[in-house]
């Protein structure tokens, strides 16, 4: 068991491991110098300090009401613990956050605080919404050690400004999350995948658009383009008769693109979407891996426009969110952004050497007025620059 931080001398450069929100607040108040906030440290984010402030000690479920589709948990709670608890009631985190361990070769256990701070959302984002859409409320400690709450545990809440959205995806730079409340959804009775093979990227994205523009409630729309083979996958979930009906309708709708196959084997369906969610095709390779957020129909053109040599030969491109999310590999150290001057969206080097990430910046540069607002917000929430210096807008 670690000592509580309040007992450490304020000048000690030891890592901090508070066990309660109050401890954390006291620790931040007496901080000299910056810290890097970690939960399970599975995303391996680097900033200008190595001194860690771990939130893993703040763990536990505060409240779970299956009939209200809500769960309130402390930020350091492991995602696996939450998923296990939800599964017992046939519920789940609908935004299916990516687990970075496979891609980044990290170990440790992902925490819900890390998921929320990183705004991590998987394939179901297109239908069930992102992590930020499921996030109903937060408690956090700002850079002055003040404990702040916003939102709550109800689904409709417009009381005051929505700092909940601001905190989701702010990577700890505005405050340390201590507790989050989340909307959860039922696990459907059945899941099936409608598949097409060997479509050109441009046709695949058209097929995904057609499926997403249909009334058949698609909950996953991905295309894996590999040198030897490509696979276009559309996920349907719900009660069995309904899933079977919609599989039939989509088969008709998409037959103009090629032969349509249905996969309804629970294990294979589950594994294939887990592979998409965790970007399996890039596990264990040595290239840099970039994530691009774009307008879906722009996606194939953007990938095709990349100059020879920037992408590693024989590597895959994974399109998720109907094309709106692109994962691709580049030769180490390449500046993908420089090759995409007309990008409507943004590009992030998720896996790259520390020096590459430092040179290029993890976060896509923003227009000056937006950058100015962001910096000012950060300066207000963390005036002494204690949290994750060097990350995001600082």
């Amino acid at each position, binding site marked *: 068991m670690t000592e509580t931080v309040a007992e450490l001398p304020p000048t000690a450069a030891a890592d901090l491991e508070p066990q309660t929100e109050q401890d954390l607040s006291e620790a931040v108040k007496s901080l000299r110098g910056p810290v890097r906030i970690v939960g399970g440290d599975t995303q391996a984010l680097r900033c200008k300090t190595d001194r860690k402030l771990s939130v893993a000690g703040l763990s536990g479920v505060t409240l779970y009401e299956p*009939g209200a589709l809500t769960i309130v948990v402390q930020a350091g709670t492991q995602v696996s613990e939450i998923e296990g608890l939800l599964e017992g009631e046939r519920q789940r985190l609908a935004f299916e956050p990516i687990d970075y361990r496979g891609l980044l070769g990290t170990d440790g256990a992902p925490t819900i605080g890390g998921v929320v701070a990183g705004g991590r959302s998987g394939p179901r984002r297109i239908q069930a919404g992102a992590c930020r859409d499921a996030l109903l409320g937060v408690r956090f400690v700002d850079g002055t050690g003040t404990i702040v709450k916003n939102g*709550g545990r109800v689904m409709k809440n417009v*009381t005051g400004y929505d700092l909940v*959205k601001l905190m989701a995806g702010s990577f700890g730079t505005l405050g340390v999350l201590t507790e989050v409340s989340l909307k959860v959804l*039922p696990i459907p009775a059945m899941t099936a995948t409608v598949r097409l093979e060997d479509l050109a990227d441009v046709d695949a994205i058209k097929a995904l658009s057609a499926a997403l523009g249909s*009334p058949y409630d698609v909950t996953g729309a991905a295309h894996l383009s590999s040198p030897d083979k490509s696979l276009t996958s559309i996920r349907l979930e719900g009660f069995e008769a309904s899933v079977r009906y919609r599989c039939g309708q989509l088969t008709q709708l998409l037959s103009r693109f090629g032969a349509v196959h249905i996969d309804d084997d629970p294990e294979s369906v589950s594994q294939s979407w887990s592979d998409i969610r965790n970007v399996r095709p890039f596990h264990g390779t040595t290239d840099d891996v970039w994530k691009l957020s774009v307008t879906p129909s722009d996606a194939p053109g953007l990938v095709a426009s990349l100059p020879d040599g920037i992408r590693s030969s024989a590597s895959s491109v994974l399109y998720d969110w109907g094309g709106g999310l692109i994962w691709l590999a580049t030769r180490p150290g390449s500046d993908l952004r420089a090759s995409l001057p007309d990008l409507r969206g943004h590009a992030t080097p998720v896996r790259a050497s520390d020096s590459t990430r430092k040179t290029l910046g993890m976060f896509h540069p*923003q227009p000056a007025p937006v950058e100015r*607002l962001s910096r000012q917000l950060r300066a207000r929430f963390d005036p002494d620059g204690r949290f994750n210096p060097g990350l*995001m807008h600082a």
Partner: protein
Amino acid sequence: MEMPAPDPLVLLKKASLVATLKDVLPSDAVISDPVETRAYECDALTAYRCPPLCVVLPSSTEEVSQVLRICHDMNVPVVPRGSGTSLAGGALPTEDSVILGIARMNAVLETDYDNRLIRVQAGRTNLSVTGAVEADGFFYAPDPSSQLACAIAGNIAMNSGGAHCLKYGVTTNNLLGVTMVQMDGTVIELGGGHLDPAGYDLLGLICGSEGQLGVVTEATLRILRKPEGARPVLMGYDSSIVAGQVVSDIIKAGVLPVAIEFMDRPCIEACEAFAKAGYPMCEALLIVEVEGSEAEIDEQLGIITEIARSHNPVELREARDADEAGRIWLGRKSAFGAMGQINDYMCLDGTIPVSSLAFVLGRITELSKEFGLDVANVFHAGDGNMHPLILFDANVDGQLETCEALGAEILKLCVEAGGCLTGEHGVGIEKRDLMDVQFAPEDLEAQMAVKDVFDPKWLLNPAKVFPLAVSQDRRSASIAAQ
């Protein structure tokens, strides 16, 4: 309702302000005649009125930017206004403010079915967004009950909801991007056709900020393909506790209806007298609607009616055709009109955790007796967004005040039960002074820090959202700086 005293220095500037505004806007876009500005002296919270200094009706983002820059430089407060349908006084002017009405900006700029989005000018009404795409089988999901009149700009300001949020979410879940003008005239673009922000989620922060951080002039909205069909089922129970249990059991069973509406006895009686929809007289009535193909609807309703039956309903009525579906919805849709027939009413919109439904309804009944005013409840049960309607007579001295006092108690009750003051109407001036029931001073300070960043002079939509005493220092600092 207390409003800050107008700044005399601003009042003195009226003539020069109007002249400067006329330099950048067509003459019919600047209204300064007190007779004509009367149309803008209140929104749908009609109990409070105040004529503005003047009204401007710009036609482009560029004009909005020029207006804001002028007002910023002259230190004149600005109240942005969509269609003026706020029930919370979100567009109530102050005497020293300019109303910036966005109604003339109502064009569709782009429809893109491949990417399932539409880009509109923000003065466009909610329903006419769907109107622009429905011939092609698409719709815009958030559907506040004022959707015929309310503007997207106001929907974004208040993060409006509607009856179908359980499945489709509220405005913030369907908003992909905005063009927004800051108080100093700076135009910024947030979001667009891509889903995630590059940095902080400023789009999420803007949505629901009640027009206090900037003026949204254009919006990119997510559109969805219309489901193949929809069908409601009606069920009546002789106890609201049981009805609450039914709601919870339906949700736990893994069915996600698009809407679960709840009405209590006073509301059923009023609606029945008004619309004669053939509702059963009971303590609690639920209308549950599901969507999909015929077979899918049958499957979902099969599960729902089985749950409903297991709780011994006094009535269970499934719609067999469109006509019967219409009759099921008829009473619910005329609820507000029915109440208006009986009396004046105040509509609250606090949200509670669904699990506290029976407790909160019981307490509301007690409070209603204590204050001597009837309360009818009609609300979105799936998401806990209540709409207690307090009936009063505005012509009887003191009844408005009693009504407001009862309303405040009910909203405090919602917060105590683990919920919030407002689920979809916004704070405006109406719930401004109750904010410290829900938030500690540090919580409000964090929100006001955001306001400081976006609008350092505190000129945008003054005297809303934050209790006047809490925002006092910031507002007076801004006046002193002139």
